[in-house]
């Protein structure tokens, strides 16, 4: 998961590395995802998210569609 200046730089990177374009997030979504994923990591009660919980977390910040599905 890399950071880019713009969509044009994402597209250039994909061409350079012969990769299909993947999913993109705004930085705001990236921060929200980080908070969702890591803010409770130092709790002794922490456990990994289930597939359903993770997909729900993605959807909660607008990351929807087949690219963000973990099952299947």
């Amino acid at each position, binding site marked *: *998961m*890399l*950071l*880019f*200046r*713009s*969509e044009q*730089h*994402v597209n*250039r*990177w*994909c061409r*350079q590395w012969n*990769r*299909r*374009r*993947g*999913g*993109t*997030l*705004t*930085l*705001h*979504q*990236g*921060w929200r*995802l*980080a*908070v969702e*994923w*890591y*803010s409770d*990591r*130092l709790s*002794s009660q*922490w456990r*990994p998210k289930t597939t359903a919980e*993770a997909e729900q977390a*993605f959807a909660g910040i607008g990351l929807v569609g*087949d*690219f*963000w*599905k*973990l*099952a*299947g």
Partner: protein
Amino acid sequence: MPSKLTRVREESSLDSDLRLYIYRFFIRHGRAPWVAEMAKGLSRPTKEVKPALVRLTGTHAFVLEGNGELWRAAPFSAVPTAFPVKIGRRSWYGNCVWDALGIPAMLHRDARIDASCGCCNYQMVLNVKDGHLVKREGIVHIAVPARHWYQDIVFT
């Protein structure tokens, strides 16, 4: 001889202690602990710590090197990366921009991330302050669909 249930409970307790020990070591020292340091810190034999580490990899948050030492305890990277994170006088590395943002999210602290564009290496400093990302210019790209993230976590 302990019952299977007792053994599972003991392993679960060790796994939890080890997980928190690793994180606290990272936070305090700015680097990953060696397996020998984990064993000493937890007063447990290495032969118990090594299988516990392998069990922790099942969470996908922990990834080991070929020699059994830590490569990643998400969001911390055990090796230097292009995502250095500075909080106060201390610094760590994230494996990717998600993990780099995850360090201040985990520690609930202000931070500076000296990131750069994955295409042209243009410097893109990110600042987290009072629980918010201050600068929001830029775009995050993930090349691998979510269901395949852990097939090659290094590339992902």
